[in-house]
Each structure stands twice: as C-alpha cells, then as structure tokens.
C-alpha cells in the first residue's frame, strides 16, 4: 500500500473542500458598484484575481505537503 500517496490524495480532497468554502463564502458574494456598465466586468476581474491568489496558495500548500510526505518516503 502506498500510504503516503493515499494521504496526499486525502489532503488534496480536504484542501479542495476548504478552498471551495472560501470561494463560496468570501469571493462569490463580492460586489463592487459604480459604473453600471463596467460593474460585471470589474466584479469578474476581481473574482478572477482573488481566485488565482487562492489557487496559488493552494499550490504552495500542496508543494509543502508533497515535500513533507515524500521526504518521509525517501528517508524510510
């Protein structure tokens, strides 16, 4: 059994659920009003930037976890 890989998959699953929660709770409801014509565009652009930041954090977290889990494989 490849226990570290199973752990890695489980961690990714938990991170997906937490990341989804952050998207729905914080990023989804964000709304900026000003110029009525540009509002949808500005809202989407801000959401894109925040989502990308979230994905970046998600990838960095995964990299750290990956290094930690697979460091254990190398040492065993």
């Amino acid at each position, binding site marked *: 059994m490849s226990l570290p890989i*199973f752990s890695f*998959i489980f961690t990714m699953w938990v991170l997906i659920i937490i990341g*989804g*929660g952050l998207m729905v709770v914080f990023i989804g409801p964000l709304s900026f009003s000003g110029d009525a014509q540009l509002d949808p565009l500005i809202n989407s652009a801000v959401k*894109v930037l925040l989502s990308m930041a979230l994905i970046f954090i998600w990838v960095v977290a995964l990299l750290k976890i990956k290094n930690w889990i697979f460091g254990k494989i190398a040492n065993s």
Partner: protein
Amino acid sequence: MEQLIIPAIIAITIAFFSVYGLTPFVIRALEKRNITVVDLNKKENTMVARPGGLSIIVGIESSLIILYIFFPISEILAVILTTFFAFIVGIIDDRKTMGGWFKPLALAFCAAPILLLGAYDSNLAFPLFGTVQIPLLYMALVVFIIPIMGNTINSIDVLNGVASGFITIASFSLSICLFILQNYEVGIVCLCLAFSSLAFYKYHKFPSKIFPGDSGAITFGVAYGGIAIIGGVEVISAIAILPAIINSFLFLSSVKKIVEHREIKNPTSHTDDWKLQSTSENHAPITLVRLLIAKKPLTEKQIGYEIFKLGIFSGILAIITAFMMGVTI
C-alpha cells in the same frame, strides 16, 4: 426515470460492443501497415499497435448519437462535437509529434461547441458550502478544463492498461455521482464513456495488444471533461481523477515547464528481473509511477494495480463529495 432505462441500455450496449468488436480489426489493420511501436517495458522487443483512438471515438460517438436521438439536448451534442474535435487533435499529434504547447492550445479550441451551444451552467457547485456564480470566469474555466482533462489523462498513459483502466474507474465513479445528484441524462452519457473505456481495457490491459495513443487518451480525457461541464460536476470530476492530477502536478513541479512527454527523460529504469525501479538520473521528472516504485521495484502489472487502487480511493472520495453536495452548512 423509467423512460430513460431503454435508451440507456441501448446506448451502453453500443458503447461497449462497438469498441469491443472494432478494436481487433483496428489492431490487425495497424499491424498490417506496420503502424506499431516498441513496448519499452517488455524484455522482448514487443511491437504493439498504436493508436487505438479510432475504435474509442467510434464507441463514444455512436453511443452518444443514439442517445441524442432519444434526448435531443444541446448538452449531449456539445460532448459529441467537443470529443470529436479532440480526437482530431490527438490524431494529428499521433501522426506528427507536435510541440508541448500544441495540444493545450488546440484542445482549448475544442471547448467551442460547449460555449457556443450554451451547454453549461455558470454556477460552480462546491460541497457543504453551496454554489458560486461566476458567469464570465466560468467561460474561461471551460476553456481551461478541456485541455487540462485531455492532457491529464494523456499524461497517465504510461503503462499497459493504465489510461483505459483509470478512466473506466473514474467515469463509473462520476456516473454514480451524477445519479446521486439526480442528473440522469448526463449520468447515462458518462456510463457510455465508462463502458467504451472498459471495452478498450480488454485489449489495452497487460500485456497490451494496442495502445490508445494521443488520439485515444485525449479522447477519453476530453469526453470526461465535457461530461463534467455539462453535468455541473466540475469539482467532483476533479476529485475522481486526483491520482492523475497528482501525476501532472508532480511532473510540472519538477520539470517547471510544459513539454511533450516524449521529450523528457524516462523517470524509471529496469532491474535484472525486468521490474521497474526509480531512476538515479537527477534530471528525470518526478511522476506518480516513480513515487510508487521509490521504495521497491514493482512489475508493470503491479504498478497498474496500485494506480487503480488510488483511482478507486479517489472515486470513493468523489462519491462522498456527491453526497455532501446535498448538505449545506
């Protein structure tokens, strides 16, 4: 629900038996024309027919066209067209090895039918927390999902039977999820993919008689991605293929650029008893297979089964996630 059963049985039967029946003819035709490649993981110089994309696309498309006759909805038409365009991209890549960026860019254009037919819901659904409305961002997401799914499945096509076996497990899991979410029509579409890949696995499993090639693996991946979009199960579908995503993630985080898989150093080598072991080459990329054999060498068949175990685990997580979709905190 009852009126779906007969079309479902007809479509699934066509999906399975068209691939099952056609693949031996494709194998013979390819071998006759010497369109074969060396199976690098066999001790003897075994030549294997490649690509088997033709029988896969016939199986998926014929079953979906039958399903479309019963249920003329734009979602099914979108998957039919997107999958067919992806197959064309795969065939081009099989005939002539293109650069690393060719496939992602060409596959992004394959998402056009989904966008033009409006076969998507711009609400992105997450478990426990509900949905988020991202109309413009979602269109960009569609253009990303198709090439990512196609390339992710293509990148796991490294050993006998792995790509077809893995997509069979993932698509059966996704079908269960779609039925749990009461999205029956798309669930049947997903079953067509599952049975097509299952039939192909019969010839692709160890020892392979045929390889799917880029045309086959990309067709599997893009059909899966298209189903995820039209079914509104993007997150669940990603969870079901987490081992393949890990493979791509490990590869990209070690290579740090997008390259054609044929351009990279082999991350494995053979022991005297012809098991696969992790290479000592520093510049070889880290992949899922390399991690599976990091502790001890395994046979090609054993590695395939290890990947299937990971696929089943991810499938179970996807099904748990589908149940969690109905619960809101």
